[in-house]
């Protein structure tokens, strides 16, 4: 498409240049929409351990533009990683990496920056996958030789994930990385932007508009996921990385005792090879072979990871999670007195001063029962009923009341409904 006919004899198919151009255009539009949706989200998000999840949940439950922006930001973050990856791969296959050495190298840096954006943005919603995915990744950072532990401490703001952690990730995500990206683009891509501008303004703007509209349509129709709030002592949660890191994750399963192979050696070799490539005299066939090998390696490992997880239950979203958590809370917190069947005959009743409520009794249920249950679960009741208001959120308490009603309320007790 641009400035390459002179190297056409190198033997790569012409569509690779088109592919690289298309990926560049997509990346350009995605970047704009990511900045815009990011600014919007920053207005609705609180980077504090106590409130991050609640603020994201609020966006989700309010629906409307907040939920659409979150979906846009979520889907385009995958989109821009793919676009940057395609640009690098197409740059390797064509003569671009040799014709525009430094642009190509900066492209590799941009791809790394995109991964940095994903790493720092992933934790922000503070749902289960955010917390666990990030702890695993910090665990991998720990194994980078010499500097790993120090790096992980700096990212967390200390040795444990705590109050200082989210603000750090947030600052990197919304201030430091964008600044670096802008500098890289301004300093390194000026000629590329000028070349792009010469390609014909109107068609280009039309293409940008189409990509943007398509992005919004996808965002409006496919919600961003949100799992239940992070529970740092939940032994039942099985963390999994995003789809584009599955191959590295699977690779990690085979690296026994040499964690740094995964965390430092493999990335360093990959990036180093790409940086050196412009200086090497390679034929298209060699590069095509190497790229095929790398793609088979990555997609093969990724597919294997999915295959090994085929029996893993799907991750519940927040709403389903509430229902599941209510059932578990009932089992763990309530059943010892109220009984697994809700009959008020749990194993601990001998220790109590009063008989626990029997949820299966028709007399227990009238039109105020639900309100009353929510109140008593929250505040407790003398002599034995403990208060859960400090340990559980109002929504979790309501879900427990709903669980009790759905499971134990006798069918005949439908008075005044």
């Amino acid at each position: 498409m641009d400035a390459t006919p002179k190297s056409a004899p190198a033997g790569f198919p012409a569509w690779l240049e088109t592919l690289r151009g298309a990926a560049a255009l997509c990346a350009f539009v995605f970047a704009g929409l990511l900045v815009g949706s990011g600014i919007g989200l920053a207005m609705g998000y609180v980077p504090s351990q106590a409130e991050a999840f609640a603020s994201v949940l609020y966006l989700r439950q309010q629906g409307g533009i907040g939920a659409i922006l979150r979906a846009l930001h979520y889907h385009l973050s995958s989109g821009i990683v793919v676009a940057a990856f395609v640009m690098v791969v197409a740059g390797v296959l064509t003569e671009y990496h040799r014709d525009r050495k430094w642009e190509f190298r900066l492209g590799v840096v941009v791809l790394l920056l995109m991964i940095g954006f994903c790493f720092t943005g992933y934790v922000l919603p503070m749902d289960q996958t955010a917390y666990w995915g990030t702890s695993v990744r910090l665990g991998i950072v720990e194994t980078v030789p010499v500097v790993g532990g120090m790096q992980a401490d700096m990212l967390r703001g200390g040795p444990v994930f705590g109050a200082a952690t989210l603000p750090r990730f947030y600052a990197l995500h919304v201030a430091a990385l964008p600044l670096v990206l802008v500098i890289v683009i301004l300093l390194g891509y000026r000629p590329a932007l000028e070349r792009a501008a010469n390609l014909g303004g109107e068609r280009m703007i039309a293409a940008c508009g189409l990509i943007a509209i398509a992005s919004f349509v996808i965002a409006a129709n496919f919600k961003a996921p949100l799992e239940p709030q992070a529970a740092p002592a939940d032994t039942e949660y099985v963390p999994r990385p995003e789809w584009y890191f599955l191959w590295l994750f699977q690779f990690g399963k085979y690296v026994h005792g040499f964690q740094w192979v995964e965390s430092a050696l493999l990335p360093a070799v990959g990036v180093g090879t790409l940086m050196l490539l412009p200086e090497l005299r390679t034929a298209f066939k060699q590069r095509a072979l190497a790229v095929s090998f790398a793609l088979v390696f990555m997609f093969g490992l990724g597919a294997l990871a999915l295959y090994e997880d085929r029996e893993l239950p799907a991750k519940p979203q927040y709403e389903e999670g509430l229902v599941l958590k209510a059932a578990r809370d009932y089992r763990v917190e309530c059943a010892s007195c109220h009984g697994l069947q809700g009959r008020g005959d749990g194993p601990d009743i001998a220790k109590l001063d009063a008989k626990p409520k029997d949820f299966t009794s028709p007399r227990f249920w009238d039109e105020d029962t639900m309100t009353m249950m929510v109140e008593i679960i929250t505040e407790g009741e003398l002599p034995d009923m403990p208060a859960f208001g400090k340990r559980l959120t109002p929504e979790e308490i309501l879900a427990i009341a709903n669980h009790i009603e759905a499971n134990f309320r006798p069918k005949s007790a439908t008075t005044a409904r």
Partner: protein
Amino acid sequence: MLIDRRTLLKSWQALAATVAGLSAIPAGLFFAFGAKAKATGSSSDEWIDLGIVQDIAEGPWKALRLRRDIQDRWKKTVVEESVYLRRQGDRFEAVSGICTHTGCLVQRAPSGFACPCHKSDFDEEGKPTSGPAPRPLDRMETKVEGGRLMLRFVKFRPGLSSSEPMAS
């Protein structure tokens, strides 16, 4: 004075790079050294009361969910930790529930412990039997004081071949 476009561009780029470079200094300083205050309670000298010795049943590993009150910089907070406790006669043993590979939480398995993240398996003594875990599950010290079992709670860095506490 006339400056051609190329020189102007160069000087503009140099200026932008300088400003950008300068911004990295204060940001980097805070990133590296700022607000790294201790989260008190996570110090390695913390003994946690696990209850009256007589109430602890004999038998294989039991999962504990420890709730610790800590002062995390500007706020008081409660954190939960996963620990496994075993009593054999008068001998108490405690291992951390944190996998030594990347820091996921292990689960009980028929043969001992298993980590669901990268499929590391540990035997009943916490030694790795398969998978990428680089060392056994970390042991924690216990003692009996005034009839109560106390646990010295420590967190260890994942990924290393030896137990290294996370000093705060």
